[in-house]
């Protein structure tokens, strides 16, 4: 028996087991949703929208957007629902009693969210690939992966903050419906922001989600609305700041060890 080993790998394992045991709801459902978006939007818009000066079909353009949207939404859902359920059921005490540091809690929860986000993202990619097989020839897979990892870490942290703050499930839905959803939908998942009027283009540049989607897409096409290095700097900066904020909240014990 070795007492010196850390507790967070078990918490990460528990987080993975939790969503794996209800994978119908946590993996298959979001994959199906993304597939429906693709069927409807590509059917309606394929002929009417031209992206990247006609170099890319609308369906091909849409798929990476949907993949990244699924990654982001599911990362948020994982931390927020896991922690919120533990708070409401009272079983959070089992995580607060052991000698785990704030960094360990952060690593386990956000790590779990990243895995869930990536698993769902890969699932969405796998089923949508059928509609645009050319996407497999990604010129920069490393870029796509970097944005997926950073994006899921950001949303995992946001989910953690939301669940620490919230006292009811209602408040989590509010966070999701009034912040996460608008930011995702207005980030260029469904369109290139070059097709927007100047005012909305400027506004989109203030949305960090836009850089996540745009940078992720660069991995698939080698084309993007802003240079990928700019996007990476902004997204990495957001991930860094948000991680520090989440750690500070955990360190302070706010609402958890009150």
């Amino acid at each position, binding site marked *: *028996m*070795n*007492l*010196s*080993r*850390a*507790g967070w*790998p*078990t*918490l990460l*394992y*528990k987080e993975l*087991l*939790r969503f794996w*045991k*209800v994978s119908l709801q946590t993996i298959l459902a979001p994959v199906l949703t993304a597939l429906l978006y693709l069927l409807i939007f590509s059917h309606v818009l394929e002929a009417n929208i031209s992206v990247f000066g006609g170099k890319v079909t609308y369906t091909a353009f849409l798929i990476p957007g949907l993949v990244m949207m699924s990654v982001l939404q599911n990362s948020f859902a994982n931390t927020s629902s896991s922690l919120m359920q*533990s708070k409401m*059921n*009272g*079983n959070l*005490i*089992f*995580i*607060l*009693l*052991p*000698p*785990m*540091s704030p960094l360990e809690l952060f690593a386990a929860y956000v790590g779990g969210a990243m895995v869930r986000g990536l698993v769902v993202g890969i699932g969405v990619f796998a089923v949508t690939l059928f509609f645009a097989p050319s996407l497999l020839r990604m010129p920069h897979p490393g870029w796509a992966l970097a944005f997926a990892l950073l994006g899921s870490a950001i949303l995992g942290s946001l989910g953690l903050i939301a669940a620490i703050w919230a006292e009811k499930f209602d408040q989590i839905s509010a966070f999701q419906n009034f912040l996460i959803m608008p930011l995702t939908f207005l980030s260029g998942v469904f369109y290139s922001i070059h097709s927007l009027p100047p005012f909305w283009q400027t506004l989109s540049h203030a949305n960090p989600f836009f850089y996540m989607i745009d940078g992720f897409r660069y991995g698939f096409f080698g084309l993007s609305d802003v240079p990928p290095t700019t996007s990476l700097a902004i997204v990495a900066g957001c991930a860094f700041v948000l991680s520090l904020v989440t750690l500070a909240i955990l360190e302070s*014990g706010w609402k958890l*060890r*009150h």
Partner: protein
Amino acid sequence: MSIAVEVVNVGRRFGRVQALDDVSLAVEEGEFFGLLGPNGAGKTTLISILAGLTRADAGKARILGHDVVTSYRAARRALGVVPQELVFDPFFTVRETLEIQSGYYGLRDNRAWIDEILHHLDLVSKADANMRSLSGGMKRRVLVGQALVHKPSVIVLDEPTAGVDVVLRQSLWTFIRKLNRDGHTIILTTHYLEEAEALCGRIAMLKAGKVVALDTKQNLLSRFAGLTVRLVVERVPVAWQPRVLRQEAGIFFVGIDRYADLEPLLAALRTEGIAIGELALQETDLEQVFLRIMGGQRGEEGA
């Protein structure tokens, strides 16, 4: 003997409620210590501070000499807590629950001890059952098991037998007594005073966030040595009213010091023409002590 749990001038306020007010106490290693008090007295707040679930506004708390805030890792490793609420994670089986809890303490290969816990808590047949499917008593046993996975030196049980049937209560206490004999320090809060009387060596009584009594069980019992007269009467003679410990629906509990005091009480009743419906004499038990201290009518000068 060294100190297992030390609480020094601990205070904690929730809004306008002073949940704990300058509480100090020390529990030695190997003790079976009782923490008694009515609802809202601050027992759970004190336990939460020891466990790091709540932070104190003032004072210090240490487990085996480790400060619960500044060296929380060592402090939490030494402490096992059975929470009052019947909480569980519905995603897992009993065995998974215990394995995961072990892992949180950094224990990866804890199977032998988990098997032993399952055996002692009579959970072997339920090891692979989902937590959701267990009865309340079974869930309570798993909570005890979870508190023990890391073999803590100090075990805190917050109302562990609330809502638990008699048979389980007995088997639970047999197990806890064994742990105490094996050297574990036990701190128990309970509503069942006979339980505290049967098990605890020393007892602290909390009232409105303050320690109002802290002594060995024998001293507490002898401090309030005496008898209680249980009387069913219309009223108690005026001169005897200060001695009424408690009153419920026509039943008066009157404290007397010795059997000889019964005579003047009966004389007073006769003089005032009060008819006695029922009369019974009770020896002091922890419940009487508790009521006197909490009632503050006769006990406070002694506390």
